[in-house]
């Protein structure tokens, strides 16, 4: 009896332990798993970021810009211990969140390809709606992968296909990279030479959903829509195979089950039969099966890739890194964590805001980017010190507008018409020069590792930044010129541009420059420039 009772107690204990564990919010479990990945966690992990560092980071990550001087001042002065959580919730609720996510996902999904068949405004408007309504991520992806461009209401969603000119190999490759975490380009011609998990059959399994489809009436028409034939199989031989054995496959996602087909009787293959100037509609559409097959729960790569990409967006590096090379020889830095994020994201109906909120609430996200004294250089993949990330072209444009007070001046000039949309439209109009210099070429990955000469000259002498500096009612140099003391100037300057207070040393520097410069107004302008051109401004830290 004793033994049984003991066992029962034990079971209750274990049971409650489990349920307690399961009730812990995701952000707590993230921190536990990051800590578990390091033996010397306590010594190596950076302390929590200061309020100022956190404030700047979370603004850039969730709203794509830096806070106004007034917002920064009030957050730093707020004594509420729950203020970080309140700020995260506030940022997620703002229109700027949807606008920022739209710009981020535009780059992720379209990689700065030319807007040929779906105009930019329609596409950005569509993405904005997706994130403003917080539509489940799987539902969003299903919409992208099932849109054929015929219905005007869903034409914007068809951009993923249409502005790749529906080049089947390109679409196959990008579905692999963006939604399955696998860049299977090599697998087009043979099993991947270095990556044993990337099989030629997997590549052609995806291609088989697509290869019967084509652009109608032709690939170059701006009004082209997708159409599909009722026949056409994929076949492949490996360029390494001397015997040239032909392989073929039905539509299939990774290792999953192929979509079996019952041959249709002759003459019944089409709902609308092909003819000159007629868009054919097959009785059985292979492409129609694609969207749900990619997002199905039987395909764990989908949730895993989505979670990994959102993690990368917030933490500056994927748990699987690079995010499109998920395979056994390139394991995740924190396997259990990636599994947890994927499972929980799916269990929460792919609620993007929920996941971003949990990530932002974690101590892991909120750590300082300053390497603790005595700790060695910290590998990025350990997530013990916040990673430094250069601002995207868009973040740089928005943050520069805010820092220089261009945005404040716009708001002032708009007066009672200063709606969020109206102010945003002013900045959007100034995005182009930043994109021209800081964004990647169409179809190429954004590179954050090098700085090119034109980028530096753009910041150093270029007219775009320079024209933001001179005094204009309500902008930063205008406000600074009206301040009496050097100390007040230093404070306003640092808070506005770098979202922090200056150190004593920096206050002294500002005072000495103002004292030596022949012309105070010019000195103020160039002080603003120096802060804008600093690494601290250029990077999200």
């Amino acid at each position, binding site marked *: 009896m004793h033994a049984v009772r003991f066992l029962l107690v034990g079971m209750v204990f274990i049971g409650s332990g489990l349920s307690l564990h399961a009730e812990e919010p995701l952000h707590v479990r993230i921190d536990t798993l990051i800590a578990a990945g390091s033996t010397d966690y306590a010594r190596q992990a950076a302390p929590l970021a200061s309020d100022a560092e956190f404030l700047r980071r979370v603004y850039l990550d969730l709203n794509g810009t830096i806070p106004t001087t007034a917002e920064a001042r009030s957050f730093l002065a707020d004594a509420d211990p729950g203020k970080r959580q309140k700020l995260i919730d506030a940022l997620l609720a703002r229109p700027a969140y949807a606008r920022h996510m739209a710009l981020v996902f535009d780059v992720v999904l379209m990689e700065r390809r030319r807007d040929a068949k779906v105009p930019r405004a329609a596409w950005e408007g569509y993405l904005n709606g997706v994130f403003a309504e917080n539509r489940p991520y799987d539902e969003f992806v299903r919409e992208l992968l099932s849109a054929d461009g015929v219905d005007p209401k869903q034409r914007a969603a068809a951009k993923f296909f249409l502005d790749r000119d529906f080049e089947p190999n390109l679409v196959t490759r990008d579905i692999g990279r963006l939604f399955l975490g696998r860049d299977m380009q090599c697998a087009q011609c043979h099993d991947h030479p270095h990556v044993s998990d990337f099989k030629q059959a997997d590549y052609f399994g995806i291609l088989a959903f697509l290869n019967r489809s084509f652009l109608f009436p032709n690939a170059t028409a701006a009004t082209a829509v997708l159409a599909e034939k009722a026949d056409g199989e994929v076949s492949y031989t490996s360029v390494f195979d001397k015997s040239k054995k032909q392989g073929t496959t039905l539509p299939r996602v990774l290792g999953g089950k192929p979509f079996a087909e019952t041959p249709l009787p002759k003459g019944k293959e089409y709902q609308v039969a092909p003819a000159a100037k007629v868009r054919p509609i097959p009785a059985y559409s292979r492409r129609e099966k694609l969207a749900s097959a990619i997002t199905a729960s039987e395909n764990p790569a989908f949730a895993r890739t989505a979670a990994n990409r959102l993690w990368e967006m917030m933490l500056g590096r994927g748990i699987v890194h690079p995010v499109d090379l998920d395979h056994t020889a390139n394991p995740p830095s924190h396997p259990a964590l990636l599994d947890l994020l994927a499972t929980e994201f799916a269990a929460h109906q792919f609620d993007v805001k929920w996941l971003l909120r949990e990530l932002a609430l974690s101590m892991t996200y909120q750590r300082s*980017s300053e390497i603790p004294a005595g700790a060695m250089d910290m590998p990025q993949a350990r997530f013990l010190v916040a990673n430094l990330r250069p601002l995207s072209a868009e973040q740089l444009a928005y943050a520069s507008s805010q820092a220089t007070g261009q945005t404040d001046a716009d708001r002032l000039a708009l007066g009672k018409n200063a709606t969020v949309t109206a102010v945003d439209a002013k900045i959007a109009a100034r995005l182009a020069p930043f994109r021209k210099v800081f964004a990647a*070429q169409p179809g190429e990955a954004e*590179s954050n590792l090098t*700085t090119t000469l*034109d980028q*530096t000259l753009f910041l150093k*002498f270029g*007219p775009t930044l320079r024209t933001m500096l001179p005094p204009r009612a309500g902008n930063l140099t205008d406000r600074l010129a009206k301040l009496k003391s050097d100390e007040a100037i230093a404070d306003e300057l640092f808070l506005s541009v770098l979202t922090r207070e200056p150190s004593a*040393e920096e206050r002294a520097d500002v005072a000495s420059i103002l004292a030596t410069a022949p012309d105070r107004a*010019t000195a103020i302008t160039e002080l603003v420039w120096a802060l804008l051109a600093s690494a601290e401004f250029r990077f999200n830290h």
Partner: protein
Amino acid sequence: MPQCDYSCGTAEHLVSRRAFLGSAGAAAALGPAGFANAFAARELNKSQKRVLVVFLSGGVSQLETWDPKPGTDTGGPFAAIPTSVPGVHISELLPLTAKQMHRIALVRSLNSVSDDHGRGASIMLTGRVPEAGIAYPHIGAVTAKLLGSDANVLPGNIQVLDRGDSAFGQADATFLGAKYGAVSLGEGKPPADLLRPASLTEESDKLREEFRKKLNDRFARSRRSAATEAYTESFEQAERVFRRSDVFDVTKEDSKVADRYGRHPFGRHMLLARRLLEAGVSYVKVSHSNYDTHHENFDFHIEQLGEFDRPFSVLLDDLAERGMLESTLVIVMSEMGRTPRINERYGRDHWSKAWSVALAGCGIKGGAVVGKTTANGTAIADREVRSGHLFHTYLRAVGLDPTKNFYPNDRPIPIADPKTDAIEEILA
């Protein structure tokens, strides 16, 4: 699989980066070409290879240049003249160039397969016919990457255009990365924003620079990565290019020299090209417009080639005189040739099936002629080559192995089209 994590930010990485940047800085401080004396500069010029492309935009006529067919139904009004190489004749529109023939090799049997301007230019500059799913880098980006030296502060890929503004492009570098993209000097103007704007005095610039550096030093005390390091270093690099902005200014040349090149834009641009090559720029392309002569082909070629002939031959002389010709490959190309058939408007139309390209200098056997067209030039008679063969030849001429690969994203991409190979007959 090989891991290549550039953002590792390890201490070793930073140290080696510093060492390289340090040496680059030291070289730049020593004045023109970064060397203390002319002898060292000459040695550098010998060992460091460069490429100059003279691009005759619009499609130059092979019949009015390198492969004349006088007295035939397609030949047009111009005679063929003897050159410095016995037995080799070129059009009488190129009298000065004819005297340079012992330095020049001709390929008279090129089939570049496209009669379209854009596609033709891409085929000629990438050595490949465009394929879906991959964009190949242009010869300028390829040579900037493979021939460039860390010791040179100037951009490695510069094109002098006869139109437009100065601009930075990346499109021609594709997977090689923006660093190797062409810097365009429209009308020979210096790179955009290289010069300090009038509203910023030298003194203010100095003050603000000092403060910017202080801020960066403070930031780097506790936060450091390869990317932040590269960012702060890029301002030093821009400063070094700024200090050498004279290179872009042809008015620094003696007026007699400028007269020799000719006072027209193309003359100035060829002189600018010489200055850039001298300063160690790996690749310079000078465009000369416009040869798209659907009307009045003959009048236009008199005019255009009259402008081309002198600066081109003067540049070859200048390079030879400076000991630079043996290390500089010079290519005269176009996006296509022109039809042998003369149309009803006395014009010639687009033609890719049988035309010519000229090469000179580094690695080239002067006076060699490869390939032949039929008597009236309407077809290739011997030794057909494609742009891929030329691409192999360019790289071999400057001592590179075109059969090696680039590895963007770990995927091997042959530098030159593996279906073709070099034209050995014209390689020295």
